[in-house]
């Protein structure tokens, strides 16, 4: 995988940034409730996502993290409550990279299909996205013959191709090697700076320290705390979060 130079990165990202970023709220949740299992209810009375930056969703296995972002993204309907999205477009990257059984190029083209682009604009955009994913020269390869890291980089490029205002990621680097993880983190940090709101589930506290602007800590289906990352690591309010940080909280 080629190194991602800063110059290229910024150039590439200009191609994928949403047309209207800003501090206004992009997603509001009210009264969201959903049964996750017999004794576990996801219960989010109110949640607002706004501006830019990276919000990381933390919590033990089974706390309802993945289900929460699925509902925010509209993949799963909650039993009750409303999710109102006003930001234009959104996208999601899954834990295991989902790619079509087509070439690298065709995967990017598919992600661009909803945008009305002139032939020239499209070619330019494809070239940048390829550069961003670090797959220049591999555009004709079958997407599913790539390495795991390359696959996830391509999946991220496909998600960014849709110029999302809001980007969800569900443990995107949990099975990747350090090089690929680094590349994805670099891209995420940059897009967050440049106007995309990111909501990401992670188990990797090192990654949280490196990336997060704020932490949303979920325990047994409820948001236990939501606070800036520094405060989270220096001393969270709740006993559960303290136990989680010291590795003692289990479901």
């Amino acid at each position, binding site marked *: 995988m080629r190194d991602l130079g800063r110059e290229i990165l910024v150039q590439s990202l200009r191609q994928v940034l949403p047309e209207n970023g800003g501090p206004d709220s992009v997603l509001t949740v009210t009264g969201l409730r959903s049964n996750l299992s017999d004794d576990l209810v996801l219960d989010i009375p109110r949640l607002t996502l706004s501006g830019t930056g990276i919000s990381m969703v933390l919590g033990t296995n089974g706390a309802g993290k993945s289900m929460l972002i*699925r509902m925010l*993204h*509209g*993949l799963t309907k909650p039993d009750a409550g409303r999710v109102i999205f006003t930001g234009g477009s959104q*996208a*999601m990257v*899954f834990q295991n990279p*989902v790619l*079509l*059984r*087509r*070439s690298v190029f*065709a995967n990017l083209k*598919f992600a661009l299909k*909803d945008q009305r682009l002139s032939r020239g604009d499209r070619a330019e955009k494809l070239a940048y996205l390829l550069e961003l994913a670090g797959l220049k020269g591999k555009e*004709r*390869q*079958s997407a599913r013959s790539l390495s795991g890291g390359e696959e996830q980089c391509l999946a991220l490029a496909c998600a960014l191709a*849709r110029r999302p205002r809001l980007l969800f990621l569900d443990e995107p680097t949990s099975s990747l090697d350090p090089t690929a993880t680094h590349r994805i983190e670099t891209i995420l940090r940059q897009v967050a700076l440049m106007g995309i709101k990111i909501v990401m589930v992670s188990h990797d506290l090192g990654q949280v320290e490196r990336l997060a602007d704020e932490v949303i800590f979920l325990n047994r289906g409820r948001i236990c705390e939501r606070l800036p990352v520094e405060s989270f690591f220096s001393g969270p309010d709740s006993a559960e979060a303290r136990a989680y940080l010291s590795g003692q909280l289990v479901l």
Partner: protein
Amino acid sequence: MNGFADSLQLALGLILSGDADLWAIVGLSLRVSLTAVVIAALVGMPLGAVLAVTRFAGRKGVIVLINALMGLPPVVVGLAVYLMLSASGPLGVLQLLYTPTAMIIAQVVLVAPIITALSRQVVEDMHAEYADYLGSFGMRGVRTIPTLLWEGRFGLTTALLAGVGRAIAEVGAVMIVGGNINHVTRVMTTTIALETSKGDLGMALALGVILIGLAISVNALIAGMTQASARQSYA
């Protein structure tokens, strides 16, 4: 009775002699069966895909029914199509009985359930894999079908081949609705049945060898096309 080796030799001789009647029969077999498979695919693939991505009351029942129809006996299908197309039947005015079109209709009935059932399976697997991804694009239900069919193209090729195999090898249906009329509706399988009934078992077996060769050729051809298109789809 001729041994298998003699029949093999006879088969080779028939092929090499370029016998016009033989080629006409081979050609008709291919034309009828391939047309039937194309039509069955145009019906079966979308139908199977709809069954794969939608949920409605009675869906399970429909799936069980279609799976069961995969085993329809050709003779029964032949009889049913005969009763429809007979001059005394509801579609008698079309005068299709004893024509290749009648044979195509019967084979479509035979093949469509196979292609539908296998397509459902393939598309269901693709749906499990891509429902979230496509949902992220706002694509749900029947709107995902074109993409899922394309992603399942290799599995669907196998479904088509299964259909070709069933169509080209069956004799019960085409015998009844085609009538095995020389130069009009005589195909490989009905010719084999005829030669067997003449007691010319060597010739029957030789034609059987050619039929098997034909089936292998069609399979190889489609497999080759699939591979070529796989290469091309990455271009």
